[in-house]
């Protein structure tokens, strides 16, 4: 290639008149007017009561409520993801009992609305006064063998204390999340090339090992973005805990101040700002996690590596294709 002599002069670089976009200017003008109207509304309407909002949106109970919201979000997601992985693996298992059980679980928890589920969990205390753990059906079994009031219980707790708002709400959110996570994880596992399973099997790796070391790390690339969405949705769904009720949670506290002072609207705006801020933090976190799990993929990194290689070898890089 280098031997081919180019003795023709290089033509002049093209300096063409760029295409004009008049409609962009029209759109900008229209949006500017709308933005001006919105700002005018925010500034001129005194129902917003900005000073009241600012004075109250960082009250200690509200900051405490934000903390509870974050804790419940994190706990519900951790339980949801772990349980979701278990259910997804069960669903894809060759054991028909496990896979039907997993199907039944996802069916139930996806079919019932989260709000209904939370109210239901909040009222579970109606079923029992005490929760006791031990041998199941101990009284019935005792009666069968002629023993009256056989008691094979290890410990018990008061149902109303145990199923407090916090625990009931957390369970409701986590169990319903697990159903959605199971579907996401299943999609992730199924997106993996069957060749990966075969290569692992041919190396003598067990199915569990293959899943842990080969399949799930790759599936993470598919699993992480929707999980980020789920986490953000979860953070927002903690506001449903008002109906359990969980009283020390962010939205409950914000609307409580609104109700107490008859200034509902400023506190609703405060709720918007709080959720906006919390969600934005999560989005930044999601960005970094996604970048980590896409290592070994991606055109950006690849291009950068190629360039580095080119530099290192002074253009003597082998150009080989054929990579899928």
């Amino acid at each position, binding site marked *: 290639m280098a031997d081919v002599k180019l003795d023709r002069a290089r033509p002049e670089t093209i300096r063409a008149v760029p295409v004009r976009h008049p409609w962009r200017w029209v759109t900008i003008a229209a949006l500017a007017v709308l933005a001006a109207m919105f700002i005018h509304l925010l500034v001129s309407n005194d129902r917003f009561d900005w000073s009241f909002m600012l004075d109250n949106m960082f009250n200690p109970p509200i900051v405490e409520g934000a903390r509870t919201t974050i804790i419940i979000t994190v706990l519900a997601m951790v339980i949801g993801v772990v349980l979701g992985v278990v259910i997804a693996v069960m669903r894809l298992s060759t054991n028909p009992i496990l896979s039907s059980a997993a199907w039944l679980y996802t069916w139930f928890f996806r079919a019932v609305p989260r709000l209904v589920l939370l109210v239901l969990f909040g009222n579970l205390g109606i079923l029992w006064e005490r929760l006791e753990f031990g041998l199941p059906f101990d009284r019935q079994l005792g009666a069968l063998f002629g023993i009256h009031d056989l008691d094979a219980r290890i410990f018990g707790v008061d149902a109303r204390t145990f199923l407090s708002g916090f625990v009931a709400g957390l369970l409701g959110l986590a169990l319903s999340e697990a159903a959605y996570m199971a579907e996401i994880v299943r999609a992730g596992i199924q997106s993996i*090339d069957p*060749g*990966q399973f*075969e*290569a692992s*099997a*041919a*190396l*003598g*790796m*067990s*199915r569990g*090992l293959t899943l842990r*070391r*080969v399949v799930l*790390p*790759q599936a993470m690339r598919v699993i992480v973005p929707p999980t980020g969405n789920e986490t953000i949705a979860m953070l927002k769904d903690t506001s449903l805990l008002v109906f359990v009720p969980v009283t020390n949670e962010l939205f409950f506290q914000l609307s409580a101040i609104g109700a107490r002072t008859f200034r509902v609207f400023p506190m609703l705006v405060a709720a918007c700002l709080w959720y906006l801020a919390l969600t934005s933090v999560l989005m930044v976190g999601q960005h970094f996690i996604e970048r980590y799990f896409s*290592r*070994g*993929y991606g055109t950006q990194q*690849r291009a950068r*590596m*190629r360039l580095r290689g080119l530099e290192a070898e002074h253009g003597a890089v*082998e150009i*080989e*294709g*054929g*990579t*899928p």
Partner: protein
Amino acid sequence: MTDAANAGGSTASDLMVRADNVHKSFGSLEVLKGIDLEVRPGEVCCVIGPSGSGKSTFLRCINHLEKVTAGRIWVDGDLIGYRERGDKLHEMREREVAAQRQSIGMVFQRFNLFPHMTAAENVMEAPIRVRRVSKASAQQRAVAVLRRVGLGDKVDTYPNQLSGGQQQRVAIARALAMEPKLMLFDEPTSALDPELVGDVLDAMKDLARDGMTMIVVTHEIGFAREVGDSLIFMDDGVVVEAGPPREVIANARHERTRSFLAKVL
């Protein structure tokens, strides 16, 4: 070193691979219709045939990636996939099958490297997790096998930064790291650009020279002639012709073999 005279006296115990009347069906479709094969230790056996002839399926039966429907396969004297107790065959547990596979290396047409691991990590994974080798010695060995296939400088490179030929050589190194007694190659050069085939074939020749027992499903007739100790032509689920490569290629006895060879040569 692999003459027909020698084959007659072989017993199962001094063969590396013995297949006896292997059948395989997918539903009502019978893909293998009674395959017999004997491969001695150190032998390179090449399998050719048109696509759909069942050669890949047969190869996958040898390490139990596919369950045979009828017949038996032994590798180094061990029955693959089943245990014989009295006159009954018992299916092996997953763990036992995995143990058998540890000593059978396999190289796939589409490489199947683990894309989230570097070349060295790909090679080290099974020795560390399956053989329980220490990380330090696995690493040492990984560098050694990668160097052997000519990739000593690509140790820390991810598969997608490697060419197809380099990826396939990493795949060979990955199989070698488990110190297999048998290597199965499933059309190892079919997914490669023509100019990259040579490096992979060189790595395989090097292995053959070192006395590795190999079964190679391939379209590279040149490789079969040069490196192979025996050549098998399969068509429509049966072995049509078998013998020393030069002989089969030069004077095929069957019309089907001749017409296939005419197309690929």
